[in-house]
């Protein structure tokens, strides 16, 4: 069992690095006590959930099982957790309400998309990736990031963005979702069990930027100061 897992990791090093690099920001959040900030507490939950889902997916892939179901299920969970982070960051009550509304709406939309993309939902062997949800998730997250950047520029509260932890988190997410936004809908057609289509290097781009995203998270968390946060 473990040998199959290790052998899969050696055959797909980039994917496995993308999975296990999540440990770096996760450990840093705990070491730097960044979880005292509700935003980073949600990031900790997000990273834990992501790591668990990714490990399950790697295990399934190593055992030649269809793991797309986990990919589909992770979409609304990821959006809820990442959106929650922005919920704490925005001051405007309208935006906060908008985020809560979008979470509920997106959950319903993803459920519809899963059923729409998989007419026979019980057939897990031929389960396919959602057609729209991942792209919509990307659009929503990028919109939240851009709104946050706009508020950041408007308020002029942060003198040096390079030492502002959440700026790094936003940058990492922006890069990751930008790299995935066009590839996500294509996966519905290419990532199929019987007729999979190889899209070559393009498929690796989001994985590479998943690693970049985790590194950006780590840099941001490294700049987090529990003492400074307590003073605020």
């Amino acid at each position, binding site marked *: 069992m473990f040998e199959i897992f290790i052998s899969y990791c050696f055959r797909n090093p980039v994917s496995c690095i993308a999975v296990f690099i999540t440990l770096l920001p996760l450990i840093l959040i705990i070491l730097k006590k960044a979880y005292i900030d509700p935003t980073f507490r949600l990031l900790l939950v997000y990273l834990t959930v992501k790591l668990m889902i990714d490990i399950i997916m790697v295990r399934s892939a190593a055992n030649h099982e269809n793991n797309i179901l986990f990919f589909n299920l992770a979409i609304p969970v990821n959006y809820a957790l990442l959106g929650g982070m922005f919920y704490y960051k925005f001051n405007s009550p309208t935006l906060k309400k908008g985020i809560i509304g979008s979470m509920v709406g997106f959950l319903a939309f993803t459920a519809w998309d899963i059923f729409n993309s998989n007419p026979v939902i019980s057939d897990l062997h031929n389960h396919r990736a959602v057609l729209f949800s991942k792209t919509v998730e990307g659009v929503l997250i990028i919109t939240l990031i851009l709104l946050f950047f706009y508020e950041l520029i408007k308020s002029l509260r942060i003198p040096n963005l390079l030492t502002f932890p959440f700026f790094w988190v936003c940058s990492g997410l922006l890069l990751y979702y930008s790299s995935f936004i*066009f590839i996500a809908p294509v996966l519905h057609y290419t990532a199929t069990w019987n007729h999979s289509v190889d899209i070559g290097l393009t498929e690796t781009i989001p994985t590479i930027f998943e690693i970049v995203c985790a590194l950006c998270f780590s840099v941001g968390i490294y700049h987090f100061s529990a003492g400074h946060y307590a003073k605020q």
Partner: protein
Amino acid sequence: MQNSEELKWALLIASLAMLTMAFCMISFVMYYQKRRFEEEKRISDIEKNYNRLLLDTALNSEETERRRIAQDLHDDIGTMLSLTKLSLNQLSKLVGSSGNEKEDQIMRKSQSLVEETILHVRRITRDLVPTTLERFGLMEAIEEFIHKLEEDNNLAITFLANTDDFPRQGQKLELTLYRIMQELVNNAIKHANCSKIDIRLEINDQMIGLKVTDNGVGFDPEKIKENNLAGLGLLGIESRLAIVNGTVQYEKPEKGGASAFAQIPVMPVSDSKPEPLHPFRRERVNI
């Protein structure tokens, strides 16, 4: 097969374009934020300089007005009083020769009142414009000020400087230090109910420090700042210091009383000196 190749290239180009946009967005936010901060800093500096200029002008006007009043007192009232004294002296001789005791007594009383008034006018003139400061420097001016205070009050005032030969500073700096010392000592006498005041003057290559300590009732500087209780005197000290980039710290020594420590960076000495009080010459003085 060809479609698959085209799809790969299309996806690759679209993803790279999106990533480029993301990179540009992050760089733009960083650059724009930095530029706005620089702009804000520039505006704040301009505002600060403008306020400083306003303060400087206000204080200059105050000094000019003091000088004008002193000049008027010296030139007009002083001269008139001297002439009155002269006339009274002549009259006294005439009254003395007549041998009327009562008239002679009234005459002497009038002479004494005129002399006293002349002394008062001189004191007020000196208080308005510290001529000793302009002529001999800070140490002599402080010593003179202490001497006068000790004459009028039952106070023990000590003055110590870390050098015997205190170098002359620019007029503005000397006047600022003198006025601050005056204000702090007057505050101690008026509010602290003290019996002893200690004045220390220190100079090194970069800074001049003035420390005034008393043994009075003392005050809590933090409370005064928090509750906006600082009167015009303390605000005046801060305003004067702001013009010369100086700072002031108030302390509450453990043994009681209060202590104020003002620090001013040493500035290059300018050549222009204010005109001394002189009859028939009234010029605006820029300090």
